């Protein structure tokens, strides 16, 4: 930064730091967003439930020792259920209730068809998973019994089971983990947008509104230096907001019990500097884009409206990544914001550098910053800058 741009930068920082409302608007997200995320993590930590065995409450348990043994072999805990009627809701710490006839043992001996009722609660992902595990195991027990009956009658079981299919889950991460990681990335990506919003509007649209732009432009300073100084100021707020969001998140996450997070975080001495390296050019790019928007408008209010609309870009892009990652082409992950999320995601959740995404992200940030800054400086030369709202 040259001397003239530094004079602008110094004044802008001093000016903005004295606006308490602006500071609150700038840093509230960085301080509260990660805390909110930490709370969400605490509330959604299903790992404990996910890690424990599925529990089935079985009515007339004494009638079905074979079924119990089969279920326990499949790592399902079976407890007795007291009652003949199906429950209105599942008992505590139970994933399903199986109701079998009181004469289950006799019916089994007679080789009759046994009608049972399985009650599950599919209102949560855990409920769905555990319920299906129990359902599948009972079905498998049924097939096992059928096989025994056929063998006893001299028929090979293979006659009625032409297919023996094993299912393997190839998804890299669970839905919860995918949503959580996407939300975390969205939080980090949103931080520079929110961090620079108020100051970017104030420094150009606000300057026009206050009629101070004319005095500034009458000084022996080039529009380029004015914009560079202002860009440095907005970038300072954007970077500070982003790093603060990252730090607050790390602090918040330290309160979540180890091993209960649905996602693995590789935030260590080798990845954090790379994350920062990735985020700084991105924050500067966002600052440059916000200044470009701010210079198009005449008043603070008008600027806020447009820059608020600009905020939807990272939000929608993040949702696209969270909910549509498997459906969009891999080349789409080289577009702005998606490429940052992809690169940061690789660093944060895998501890790996995705060189192509990182390089693309930094290149987009550098080129984008230059383009926005050039157009903003060009616009500052325009006579319309002398008109206030």
């Amino acid at each position: 930064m040259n001397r003239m741009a530094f004079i602008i930068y110094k004044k802008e920082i001093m000016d903005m730091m004295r606006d308490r409302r602006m500071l609150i608007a700038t840093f509230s997200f960085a301080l509260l967003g990660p805390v909110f995320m930490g709370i969400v993590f605490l509330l959604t930590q299903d790992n404990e439930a996910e890690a424990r065995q599925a529990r089935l409450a079985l009515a007339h348990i004494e009638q079905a020792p074979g079924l119990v043994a089969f279920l326990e072999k499949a790592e399902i805990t079976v407890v007795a259920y007291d009652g003949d009627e199906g429950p209105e809701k599942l008992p505590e710490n139970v994933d399903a209730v199986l109701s079998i006839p009181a004469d289950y043992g006799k019916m089994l001996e007679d080789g009759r068809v046994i009608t049972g009722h399985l009650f599950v609660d599919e209102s949560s992902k855990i409920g769905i998973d555990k319920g299906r595990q129990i359902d599948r195991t009972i079905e498998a027990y049924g097939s096992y019994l059928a096989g025994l009956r056929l063998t006893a009658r001299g028929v090979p079981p293979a006659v009625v089971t032409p297919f023996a299919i094993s299912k393997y889950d190839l998804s890299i991460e669970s839905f919860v983990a995918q949503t959580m990681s996407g939300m975390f990335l969205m939080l980090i990506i949103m931080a520079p947008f929110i961090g620079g919003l108020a100051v970017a509007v104030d420094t150009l649209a606000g300057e026009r509104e206050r009629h101070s732009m004319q005095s500034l432009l009458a000084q022996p300073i080039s529009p380029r230096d004015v914009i560079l100084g202002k860009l440095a100021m907005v970038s300072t707020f954007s970077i500070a907001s982003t790093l603060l969001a990252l730090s607050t998140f790390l602090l918040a996450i330290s309160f979540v019990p180890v091993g209960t997070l649905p996602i693995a975080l590789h935030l260590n001495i080798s990845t954090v500097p790379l994350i920062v390296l990735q985020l700084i050019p991105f924050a500067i790019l966002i600052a440059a884009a916000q200044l470009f928007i701010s210079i198009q408008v005449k008043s603070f209010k008008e600027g806020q409206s447009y820059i608020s609309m600009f905020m939807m870009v990272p939000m929608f892009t993040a949702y696209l990544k969270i909910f549509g990652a498997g459906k969009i082409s891999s080349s789409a992950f080289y577009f702005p914001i998606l490429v940052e999320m992809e690169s940061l995601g690789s660093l944060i959740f895998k501890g790996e550098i995705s060189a192509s995404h990182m390089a693309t992200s930094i290149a987009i940030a550098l080129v984008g910053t230059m383009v926005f800054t050039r157009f903003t400086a060009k616009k500052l030369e325009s006579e319309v800058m002398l008109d206030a709202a």
Partner: protein
Amino acid sequence: MIIVKNIAKAYGAVQAVKDMSFQADDAKITTLLGANGSGKTTTLRAISGLLKTDGGNVLVDGINVAESPMKAQARLGIFPDSFGLYTRLTTREHLAFFAEMHGLSGARLAAAIDEVCEKLNMADILDRRTEGFSQGQRMKVALARAILHKPANIVLDEPTRGLDVMNIRLLRRILLDLKAAGHCVLLSSHVMAEVEALSDHVVMMADGVVCADGSPAELVALAGQANLEEAFVVLTGQQAAAERNAA
């Protein structure tokens, strides 16, 4: 010295300045006198390097403003039509910011602030944020900002608007001091008494052109009227009639 040669400026279909030429000499107070919308602000903005003219030239101490706006601006002190202060900065911070852009720093900067503060009698507001300043206090800051770096040429756009008598007298004294110190002072106004009391040279404007140009006494004599106000009405009226005939 400021020389304006045949400048013209249009905003879309509106021709704000048509063919404007005049000269503002050093050690003189030159006033652009014209009604609202006559092109005074446009002319002063062209001199300040804030807008590009459609034709003609502006020279500030021989520097072509269109070719080297920053060099010209370094020789100008601008008092714009809006004070445009930074309300979260104190007067001292405000002045330091603008002075630094003119190359002042350290002890020189501090001395320049002290000097202008004494000259404008503004010690009471020097370390106060400019938010909530009265019109007179705001004028002082804007004037201090324009003269702090001791520019050879000072351009003021209607500097007395909204000021009380005491502040007008203070401003008048400052402008006379600048003139005495050899500065070229160029201002715009439509207040006849102020123009008559202050100006060495008056450039009368109407509809974007110069309709008469000379000392207040010369203009009164030219119009054959008793005072400058009557002379202004006659001379600008003649211009309007000429415009109508041409149309």
